């Protein structure tokens, strides 16, 4: 942990203007009666330090839909591909919660690393400075602590702000953060401010309900592919996409060609494992024919396949899926059911003692 600096409330507006010099500002703002991450005109609009927005910030790097390329009237003539849109605009993403910042690390594993890197994602990610704000207001649906995280987790952030009674203690986390932080010429934070900042996030951590969801979950799930519990879990699911859309980690997409008389565009847009059409094949066969198999996929993907494949859970515990579900299907309860079911099976398995 390096030096910490102080940003006073009096300097906040000027500091945000400085950020706007650096890049296009995206921050929590009120739009159509909703607090959400959106392009912000300036400090006047920015709402810092609130509890989680209803929708996550993943769209900043992975938009709900985007044009991958445009083409002329003939799809089979590659000379007519007119425009490949890579957005290199510098951006500042200000005021994300630590759980949102943490989610970017997982998205990086999917889109930004390894042999198959996504140029659209990588361009946005490389050009965006992430300034997270430590969480002073966890709510009853927050469970980041189940993933070893907490209100002052700086993972995935370039800069972390600690709210201190209207002022902020500023921690420069990444190399990019340290570099730009020099331009701000902020004074060092005194010990009292740092102690107060730590006390506030410690109090926030205290408010998180102790919850054990992830210990051994991969082993638990290993034996449950054919379990009847998925049918019970999924029975009330209405198969809408809210949980996946609002999830900072869900990253499945569909690619379609949208054709107009003038030519066409190849679009990529969010898709969701909760939708029956997600796995529908051209033959008419659907390997996930019911909501039970879709819920199994949702849980297996987040808590078994992703840990096995990229070493990270597909969940940061932000609780958005719980709050926004039209039938209040709670993923924490599903994971607890999974664990119970695994225990029941282990107890009933022949050849086991005690």
């Amino acid at each position: 942990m390096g030096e910490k600096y102080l940003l006073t409330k009096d300097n906040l507006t000027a500091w945000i203007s400085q950020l706007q010099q650096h890049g296009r500002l995206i921050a929590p703002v009120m739009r159509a009666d909703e607090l959400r991450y959106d392009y912000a005109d300036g400090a006047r609009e920015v709402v810092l330090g609130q509890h989680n927005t209803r929708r996550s910030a993943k769209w900043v790097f992975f938009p709900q839909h985007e044009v991958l390329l445009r083409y002329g009237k003939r799809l089979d003539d590659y000379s007519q591909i007119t425009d490949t849109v890579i957005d290199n605009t510098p951006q500042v993403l200000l005021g994300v919660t630590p759980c949102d910042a943490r989610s970017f690390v997982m998205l990086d594993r999917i889109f930004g690393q390894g042999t198959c890197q996504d140029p659209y994602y990588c361009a946005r990610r490389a050009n965006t400075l992430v300034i997270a704000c430590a969480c002073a207001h966890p709510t009853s649906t927050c469970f980041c602590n189940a993933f070893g995280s907490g209100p002052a987790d700086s993972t995935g952030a370039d800069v972390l702000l600690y709210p201190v009674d209207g002022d902020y203690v500023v921690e420069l986390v990444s190399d990019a953060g340290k570099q730009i932080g020099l331009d701000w010429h902020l004074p060092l934070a005194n010990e009292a401010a740092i102690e107060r900042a730590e006390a506030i996030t410690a109090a926030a951590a205290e408010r998180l309900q102790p919850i054990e969801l992830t210990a051994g979950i991969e082993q638990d799930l290993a034996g449950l592919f054919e379990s009847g519990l998925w049918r019970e879990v999924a029975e009330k699911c209405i198969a809408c996409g809210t949980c996946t859309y609002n999830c900072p980690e869900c990253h499945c997409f569909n690619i379609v060609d949208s054709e107009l008389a003038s030519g066409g565009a190849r679009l990529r847009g969010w898709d969701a494992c909760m939708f029956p059409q997600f796995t529908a094949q051209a033959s008419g066969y659907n390997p996930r024919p019911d909501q039970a198999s879709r819920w199994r996929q949702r849980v297996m993907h987040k808590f078994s396949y992703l840990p096995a494949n990229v070493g990270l859970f597909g969940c940061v515990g932000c609780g958005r899926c719980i709050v926004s579900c039209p039938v209040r299907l709670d993923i924490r309860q599903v994971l607890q059911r999974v664990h119970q079911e695994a225990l029941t099976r282990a107890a009933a398995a022949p050849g086991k003692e005690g």
Partner: protein
Amino acid sequence: MNALPDNVKQAIAGWLQSGEIELFIGYEASSLPLQATPAFVRKAEDLDRLIWDATCENNLVSFLKQFRGKKVGLMVKGCDARALVGLMREGQLVRDNLRIVGVCCLGVVDAKRVAAAAGQAVEELDGRVTGTDVLTADQHLALSSVMHATCAACRHHNPEIYDILIGEPVADADDDPFDDIRAVEALGSAERWARFEHELSKCNLCFACRNVCPFCYCNTCFADKTMPRWFTATAEPKDIQFYQIIRTFHLAGRCVGCNACSRACPQGVDLRTMLDKLRLDVWELYQDDAGVNPQGHPPLTTYREDDDNSFVL
């Protein structure tokens, strides 16, 4: 939070044990305050989980799509029962297959309104309901002040059909249920369009509105068809508006105004105004109300020589 009355539990237990139904769909407490969650019960001993109070906002009729031809029991509020009636008129349900616990309803809580009154996040509320009172940690709110906007427009508090009833029938107001819709009609077209654009700018195309609608029972929705593809689900306003307009028009003469869609919408889009405008038009043109008579036919599937044709150019 109220457990079901003993006589109701006994009736449901009897239906389950005799095989009259294989499943009963009711409500139980969820992990969130002031919001119940649908519960599926197959054994009489599980009936103690079930509750009925003003937190039971979902329309359980929506789930019958999953149980076609099965014998199912369920709880219905006045609005939900209208959906049953409408579906019977469309030949989608057989009354004999259903066992219905009707509830007389004074409205269901909109937890977001309570949260706004309390200055807290919905999930942080320390709230409970007793009768028509909504109690939070330090406030005592009248249900009428924090119920869903859809409930304020309700003139059907009592179920049209049921086998057993919970509560005493409530007097329905005799006034015009469409007065706020007429107020929107009276606006200029620019203002109406601005309002429409504003509301739909909240929509994120999650399709919860369609999926909870009892009347959205097409095997494959137009929005999901790929051969031909009518619709591309981008988040652009034109696509969102296209989807919502087509869905709304598909419900003309069929929507019973249960407003399950508006209550399910995680983005708080006011879908009721659009749907009730259509219900008002159908009433004025054909004097038809979809949720009243299980016999007969929806007005847009029939023809009479004296049908209004003033809109024909």
